[in-house]
């Protein structure tokens, strides 16, 4: 693979929520939603961020979009420090990074016709004349496979899959370079999921888009992603090219995630690793390796120290004492 410079580079990003100030809280409870994660995405690649609910993956998305401000760390987009941008400069950058949301039922304004939903981003950034906008919107509607009369209708007239197409059209209309897809198919019906996966893939190839795909479903990762980061309680525990993670998952958590996926083949059921217990609360993460309470391979050391991230190969890294 030729070394392409990364479009997005995240370094040691942290977001700690504290509920100081609330009269109900014990003082200085810190929720370390994102606790020092680093990754980079090359232009034209799809990076999958995988993890269970509460691991902090959506917080990462909101940090990159600068909907919330990180506690520390850096986010570089196209070699520019996103965190130093302010006011108009920051606004201008927003159009390069767009988002597709999980729930197509709550992410479209029910009182707006689809035309207005799609025009709003153009309006906000002052792009194009009336005629140019119309041409642009008509083109996008076709690209995402919606019928021509879509623009005059309201969101409630569409099914979940069609609404998700509208959400995708809204993200595309500004011609962004990076699209953050937050669980784009998990709210859809099985027969519709495949359609949306294919659509995301086609659009990516056509426009040379870069995706940050946030998902809990490794099967989706298999179809879309070039590289993967696995998150657990605010940290990335394993990171590699898709091929390496799928053929040779290193971290015990990644292995358990793979093994937990129900396999749609009754002839071929493999024994599975069942993890004990629940994901611990991020308010009170376990000492040492965060995963040691559920890890089938936990050692004494895991309970005391935090494992460093080590490189297994050039592109494969893992934070686990088994490999140090």
């Amino acid at each position, binding site marked *: 693979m030729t070394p392409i410079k990364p479009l997005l580079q995240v370094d040691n990003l942290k977001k700690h929520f504290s509920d100081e100030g609330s009269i109900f809280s014990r003082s200085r409870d810190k929720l370390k939603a994102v606790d020092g994660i680093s990754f980079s995405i090359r232009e034209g690649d799809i990076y999958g961020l995988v993890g*269970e*609910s509460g691991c902090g993956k959506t917080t990462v998305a909101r940090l990159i979009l600068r909907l919330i401000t990180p506690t520390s760390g850096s986010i570089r987009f196209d070699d520019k420090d996103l965190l130093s941008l302010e006011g108009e400069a920051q606004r201008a950058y927003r159009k390069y990074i767009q988002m597709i949301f999980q729930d197509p039922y709550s992410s479209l304004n029910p009182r707006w016709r689809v035309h207005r939903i799609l025009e709003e981003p153009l309006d906000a950034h002052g792009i194009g004349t009336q005629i140019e906008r119309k041409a642009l919107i008509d083109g996008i509607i076709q690209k995402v496979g919606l019928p021509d009369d879509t623009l005059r209708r309201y969101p409630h007239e569409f099914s*979940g899959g069609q609404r998700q197409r509208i959400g995708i059209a809204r993200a595309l209309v500004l011609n962004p370079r990076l699209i953050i897809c937050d669980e784009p198919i998990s709210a859809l019906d099985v*027969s*519709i999921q*495949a359609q949306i996966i294919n659509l995301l893939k086609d659009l990516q190839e056509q426009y040379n888009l870069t995706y940050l795909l946030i998902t809990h479903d490794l*099967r989706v990762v298999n179809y879309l992603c070039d590289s993967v980061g696995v998150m657990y309680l605010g940290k990335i525990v394993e990171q590699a090219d898709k091929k390496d993670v799928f053929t040779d998952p290193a971290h015990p958590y990644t292995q358990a995630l793979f093994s937990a996926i129900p396999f*749609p083949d009754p*002839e071929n059921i493999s024994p599975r690793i069942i*993890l004990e217990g629940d994901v611990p609360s991020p308010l009170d993460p376990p000492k040492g390796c965060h995963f040691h309470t559920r890890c089938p391979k936990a050692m004494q050391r895991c309970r005391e120290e935090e494992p460093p991230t080590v490189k297994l190969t050039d592109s494969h890294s893992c934070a686990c004492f088994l490999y140090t």
Partner: protein
Amino acid sequence: MAIQEHDPLLSVEHLSLSFETTESSVVVLDDISLAIGKDEIVALVGESGCGKSVTAMSIMRLLHSPPAQYKGGNIYFQGEDLLKSSDRHLRDIRGNRISMIFQEPMTSLNPVLTIGDQVAESLTLHNKLTKEETLKAVVDLLEKVRIPGARQRLKSFPTQYSGGMRQRIMIAMAISCKPDLLIADEPTTALDVTIQAQILELLKTLKRETSMSILLITHDLGVVAEFSERIIVMYAGQIVESASTRELFKTPLHPYTQGLLNSLPKLHNLETRLKTIEGYVPSLGKLPVGCHFHPRCSHVMPICRESCPPIIEIKQGHTCRCFLQSEACV
């Protein structure tokens, strides 16, 4: 092989149900027939709005009327017709001989009652127990569903538990009276994959220990493949295919089932494109004339646009609702 020689535990015969409002009448279940044997796990699979939850609710007789109207058919449970049973008798059955687990463990527990009280509720309703006996039974149940420190947890509230733990509590409530049939409506859909694996494992173990039958309602074909012995596929208010799990995955007959199986993303597959079923699931109020699936079907024939195919048995234990199959039979 699960062939029923004796009478099935539950048998639903030609059940039709519609939702009636002043303006319209929508057929939600159209000629549903299914049977569940003793000690059997049957899965009811379909997409949202296909009527699978309504089927479960109508077996439990939990639908309000109006709007729900039973249009015909029978539901036999251990020989009794549930559609003809009195409310009082139904209350004896619910939670006692048939019980149910719901999809959302977050919303189906009462937030202002303690865990102990909620688990005890159906126990005390259906059995005459002293306080000590109830307490002991509740602790046993919580231990059975592997809740650590059960005795200390009796006085805690649902908000103090995670999703997986709440679903365990729901399961403890459902099995408290040793039901003959457990209806599990999307029991793991709201849970994370690693927790889903735990809950399915728990259900399997409980089933082995108590020999209850399970009707599992889900949209996840992966869960079904590992968990159930027989599968019933629903589409737009009708059963379109049913067969044993192995048979259905090996030789699916209905184009919808074939499409569903093909469109599943596989974990280890080098193909980069998924096969899809074109179009969208129709809403039950606006069903197409003829076969409900014909606008999305890749094998559509003229007859499919005119009349709805009957469901027929193609092979022993394998039924299918498609003209392609009935023509092959003729």
